[in-house]
C-alpha cells in the first residue's frame, strides 16, 4: 500500500509537469476566442517548449554561474512546491512532508533565484524586472500566508491535505472566512503568476515587463525551463484554489475509480477557472504599476477579514 501511495505521489508530481502547458494553452485559446480569433492550437505551449529545448543556449559574456544554475533551481523549487498540493488525492506521502508554509517558502526560493538571474547579466531591463517582482512579492507573500492561515485555523493544521480533509468532512458549510480567503488568494494568484491586470504575459514591450523582463536574456533550454516553471506555477495556484476551496471530487481513498473521478473533477474545475481567468484578462487592461500595491493591499485586507471572520463567527460556534 505504501509503495502504491508513493507511486501515486510520483505520478501526481509528473502530472503537474505534464499538464502545466495545457492550462496555459487553454487560457490562450479561450482568450483568442473571446477576441474573435482562432488562436494557436491547444498544444502550442508543448510545441514551444519542445522547440526551445532543441535550440542552442546562448549565455551573455557577463553572466556568472548563477545565471546558468537559476533555471534549474527555479524549475525544481516550483515543482517541489507543486508536489505538496493535492491534485488527485489527499493523504499522499508527499503531503505528509510538506505544508503550505513550505510551499510559500519554495516559491520564495524560486523567486529569489529568478530575481538574482535577472540582475546577473547587468542589463537595465533585468534589474528593472527584478525590482518590480520584489515590490509585488513583498506585498503578495503576506497576503497569501494570511489567506492560507485562515484555512488552517478551521482545519487546525497547515497541512493542505488535512485542510482539504477537514473541509470535506464538514460538508457543505458556508463559511464567510473561506469566501474572504478565496478572494484574497485569487488576487494574490493573479499577481504571483504575472497575469493581467498585474503583468502582461503576452507583451513585447520591455519597459512594461515584470516577469518577462527577468528572463529576457535566457534562450534555449534555460528559457524552456523558466517558461515551464512559470506554467507549473500557474497550475499550482489553479489547483490550490480549486482543490482547497472546492475540494469535491478529490480522491480520499486510493482506488482506481476514485482517482479517475478525482482527475476528471480537477480537470473540469481547472478548465472553468482558466476560462474565468481568460474572461478577466479580456475585459481588463493592465493596471499602472503603482496601482499594484493597492491591489495587493486589498488582498491582504480580504485575508485579514477572513481571519477575523473566522475568529468572530466560527470559533466556538
Amino acid at each position, binding site marked *: 500500500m505504501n509503495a502504491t501511495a508513493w507511486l501515486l505521489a510520483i505520478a501526481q508530481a509528473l502530472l503537474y509537469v505534464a499538464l502545466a502547458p495545457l492550462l496555459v494553452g487553454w487560457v490562450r485559446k479561450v482568450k483568442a476566442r473571446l477576441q474573435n480569433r482562432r488562436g494557436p492550437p491547444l498544444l502550442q505551449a508543448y510545441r514551444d517548449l519542445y522547440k526551445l529545448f532543441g535550440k542552442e543556449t546562448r549565455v551573455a559574456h557577463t553572466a556568472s554561474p548563477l545565471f546558468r544554475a537559476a533555471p534549474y533551481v527555479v524549475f525544481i523549487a516550483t515543482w517541489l512546491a507543486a508536489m505538496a498540493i493535492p491534485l488527485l488525492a489527499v493523504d499522499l506521502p508527499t503531503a505528509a512532508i510538506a505544508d503550505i508554509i513550505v510551499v510559500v517558502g519554495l516559491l520564495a526560493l524560486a523567486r529569489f533565484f529568478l530575481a538574482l538571474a535577472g540582475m546577473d547579466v547587468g542589463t*537595465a531591463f533585468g534589474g528593472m524586472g527584478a525590482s518590480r517582482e520584489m515590490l509585488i512579492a513583498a506585498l503578495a507573500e503576506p497576503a497569501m500566508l494570511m489567506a492560507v492561515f485562515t484555512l488552517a485555523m478551521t482545519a487546525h493544521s497547515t497541512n493542505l491535505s488535512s485542510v482539504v480533509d477537514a473541509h470535506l468532512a464538514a460538508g457543505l458549510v458556508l463559511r464567510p472566512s473561506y469566501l474572504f480567503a478565496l478572494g484574497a488568494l485569487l488576487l494574490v494568484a493573479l499577481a504571483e503568476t504575472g497575469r493581467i491586470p498585474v503583468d502582461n504575459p*503576452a507583451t513585447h*514591450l520591455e519597459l*512594461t515587463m515584470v516577469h518577462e523582463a527577468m528572463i529576457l536574456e535566457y534562450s534555449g533550454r534555460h528559457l524552456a525551463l523558466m517558461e515551464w516553471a512559470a506554467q507549473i506555477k500557474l497550475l499550482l495556484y489553479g489547483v490550490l484554489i480549486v482543490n482547497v476551496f472546492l475540494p469535491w471530487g478529490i480522491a480520499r481513498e486510493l482506488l482506481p475509480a476514485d482517482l479517475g473521478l478525482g482527475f476528471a473533477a480537477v480537470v473540469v474545475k481547472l478548465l472553468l477557472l482558466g476560462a474565468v481567468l481568460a474572461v478577466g484578462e479580456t475585459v481588463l*487592461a493592465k493596471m499602472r504599476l503603482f496601482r499594484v500595491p493597492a491591489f495587493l493591499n486589498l488582498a491582504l485586507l480580504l485575508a485579514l477579514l477572513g481571519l477575523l471572520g473566522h475568529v468572530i463567527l466560527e470559533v466556538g460556534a
Partner: protein
Amino acid sequence: MSRLDWLSEYLARLIDEHVVVRSGDAQGLAPAHRLVLDSEDWGAAARVAAAFGCRWAGVWGDVEAGDSEGTQLTLRAALERDGGFVVLETEVPVTFPVLASHTNHFPAADRMERHLRDLLGVGFHDHPDARRWVRHQAWQENEFPLRHYVAASGHPPLRTRADSDYPFLRIQGNGVYEIPVGPVHAGIIEPGHFRFQAMGEEVLRLEERLGYTHKGIEKIAVGRDPAALARLAARVSGDSTVAHAWAACQAMERATHCQVPPRALFLRALMAERERVANHLGDIGAICNDVGFAFAHMQCGRLRELWQRSSHALFGHRFMMDALIPGGVARDLPADAPARLRAEHAALRREIAPVFAVVDDHPSLDDRLIGTGCLSAADARLLGCTGYVGKASGQAFDLRHDSPYAPYDRLHVDVPVQQEGDVAARVRVRMEEVRISLLLMDRLLDLLPSGPIAATLPQPAGGTTGLGLVEGWRGEILAFVRFGADGRIARYFPRDPSWFTWPALERLIHGNIVPDFPVCNKSVNGSYSGHDL
C-alpha cells in the same frame, strides 16, 4: 490674401527692429509669401516672428550648383500664422556659411538646424546644442553630403565605428539610473534609441537619439525627373505614402503651374483620407495593446486589414503607394467603385461604433490613458505640433480647414480639438478624425467630377521653386522643390510633422513612470523614417 492679413504688421515690426527686407513676392513659393533678408537679420526676423505669435514650420538649405558648386548657400525657413505662410529667405557665402540660430526663439528648430549643419555644413553661431544629430560615424568629419562635391554613394569606410560615444546628458544623484532602449526593439517597429534617466520608476529625463533610418532622401532626390521624385516621396515614410507623394507633386505642380484635373484632386483626397483612417485604426488598437487591452487591438487590427485589402482592390496597393503621379493620379477607380466605397464606409461606421464606445469608456482603460503623458498647450504651441498631437493639446490647426488646398476648398472639414493633452485626448482626437474622414469621403464621392485623371506636367523652367503643403494623417507636411536648369530636381526637402512631435514626446513623458513610456510613444507615433530622411 486674406490669410496673410498679418503680413503688413509683421513687416512693420521687422522695420521697428531694423530688419531690412530686401525683396518679397507672393509667386515663387505660393501660397506662401517669400521675404528675402540679409543673413545678419536671420535671427532677428525669427525673434520678431516668435513675439508675433508665428508657428515655426521648418528650415532647409540649398546650394545652387551647376557643373560646379555655386558661391551662395540659400536658407529658407517657413512660418505660419492663422493659416497664412511666410518663407524667410537669406543667402550666406558657401565659404563661410554661418548665421544666427532660430532655436533660441523657436525650440522646434533645434534638431532641424543640427540636421542642416550635419548635411550641408551650415554653422549656427548661437545654437545651444553643438552635438551632431543625423551625422553617422561612417561620415568624415568635414564632409557634408548635400554639397555638390560629395557623391550620392558617399565615401563609406570599410568598417564603421559603433555609435557609442554620443554624449547624452546625464543626471547625477543618489538612486538615479540610466536605461538605454534600442535602437533595435522587440516587435516590428523602426529603429531609434531612447535614453532614460530614471529614479525608481519615475522618468526624470528622456533623450531621443534618432537617425538610424537615414536614407539620404534629400541627396538621392537630386537629378531625378518629376515622376521619379514622386516615387521617392512616396517612400519618405511608408505609412504616409499618399500624403508625402501629394506634397511633392503639389510642389512640382505649383512650380510648373500645372493644372491638375479636378477628378485627380478628388481621388487624391479620397486616398489621403483612406490613409488617415487606416493609420488611426491601427494606432488606436496599438495604444490599447500597449496597456494590455488586447480586445481593441484585435478588433482595430481586423478593421484595418479589411480596409487595406479594399485599398488594394480599388486603388491598386494596400498603402496606395505610387498611386499619385505629377499632374494627377496613376489609375482611375473601377466603374463600380463609388458604390463599393460607400458601402464600405457605411460598414466601417457601423463596426467602429461599438469598438470606439468601449475604447472611450472602459474604466480599466480610462485608468491607464487619462492623465498619462500630458503635453501642455503651451508646449504644443512652442514646439509647433500639428496633427493629432497638437489637436489633443488645444492646437486647432489643420491645413484642410485653415489653409485649404483643392479639393478641400470645396468641403467643410471639422477639426476635433481637445484641451487635456493626455494619451486619452490623443485617442479621442483620432477616433473623431476617423468619423470625420468617413463623412468627408462620402462627400468626396458625392462631388467626384468626371474627366481625365492626369495632366502632363509642363517642362519645368530652371530655377523654379514650389512649396507643397498637405495635411497628412500625422499633421502638416511641407515639401520644397527646386528644379535645375535641365528640368530635373535640384533640391527636394520633405518636412514630416514628426520633426515636432519627437521633441514633444521628450516633454510629455516627464514625470511619468517608465512602464508608461510605450503607450505615450505609441499615442504620439512619430515617424522615424520621415524624420531621419
